[in-house]
């Protein structure tokens, strides 16, 4: 009886373990297909040749946001900025990728056909603004982008061939502070990278060969007064230690 129990218990455990596991897999696959973003437009050739002109097309990919965390996040950012959820046509939210900047742009159409909510995302920060698009004189269309405090950021006019004109850029404190925040974050990341590279470079065992490692170590030794003093007292022992340490040096060596 005891022996039977010993066999049955692990078997029961395995059944319990595997069956909910299968359900979970199926469930996660379903939710994945429901929530994934769908591709609307993609032109990878734009990634290879980036036009230096501001007016040229820089959008190389557009996605329609699925019902996922990314969409929830941008909606919550919009709500935090005073936009009403009912005003947004969330199912039509799109994500834009540019070839000349790492900034991501989201656009969410609203119930007002002349207004579209625009969110810029950079370094995990969001800037929420409202784009206004309405007919102007002589068949032109007037486009302006305002921050949520109803201050202008820029405005321009478009003709029927989508050519831009009368571009005006305004002083906007919100955009400025967003730029400053992004800049400081980017600068922080870059400076950390530089520090890391510097630290890696100082490890002479990462040099490509034994002789390069020796040269690097001797250079480092010249910067340290302790090392220089010891080189006067016991040069042979010092060089022997360096030589032994540099054996096996290379890019994959441990520092």
């Amino acid at each position: 009886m005891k022996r039977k129990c010993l066999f049955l218990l692990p078997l029961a455990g395995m059944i319990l373990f595997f069956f909910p596991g299968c359900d979970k897999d199926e469930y996660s696959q379903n939710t994945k297909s429901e929530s994934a973003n769908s591709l609307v437009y993609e032109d990878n050739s734009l990634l290879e040749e980036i036009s230096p002109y501001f007016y040229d097309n820089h959008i190389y990919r557009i996605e329609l946001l699925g019902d996922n965390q990314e969409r929830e996040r941008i909606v919550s950012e919009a709500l935090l900025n005073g936009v009403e959820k009912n005003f947004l046509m969330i199912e039509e939210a799109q994500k834009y990728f540019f070839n000349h900047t790492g900034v991501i742009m989201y656009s969410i159409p609203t119930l007002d056909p002349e207004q579209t909510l625009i969110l810029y995302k950079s370094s995990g920060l969001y800037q929420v603004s409202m784009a206004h698009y309405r007919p102007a004189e002589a068949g032109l269309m007037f486009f302006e982008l305002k921050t949520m405090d109803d201050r202008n950021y820029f405005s321009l006019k478009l003709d029927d061939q989508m050519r831009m004109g009368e571009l005006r850029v305004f002083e906007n404190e919100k955009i400025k502070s967003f730029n400053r925040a992004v800049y400081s974050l980017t600068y922080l990341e870059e400076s950390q990278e530089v520090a890391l590279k510097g630290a890696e470079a100082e490890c002479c065992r990462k040099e490509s060969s034994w002789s390069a490692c020796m040269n690097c170590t001797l250079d480092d030794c010249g910067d340290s007064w302790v090392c220089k003093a010891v080189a006067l007292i016991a040069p042979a022992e010092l060089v022997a230690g360096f030589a032994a340490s540099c054996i096996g040096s290379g890019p994959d060596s441990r520092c």
Partner: protein
Amino acid sequence: MITYAKVKFWSFLVIGVVCIFIGAYLFPYGPDKRALAEFLLLIGGAQLIIFVVLLFFRYRKRNREAAQT
């Protein structure tokens, strides 16, 4: 006592050389181990200096004794 003094005397040389070798070995391992490497080099250098000073006094004494006889 003489044996102890002899051991102590030669230990300055041995410990000094060993500390310098280990310090030099750790030196190319980068800034993380630089402090330890420099500390060992300093200790080793100090031990060798003590050894050399003691060696100097020892041979000076021997030279004097040889000169008197």
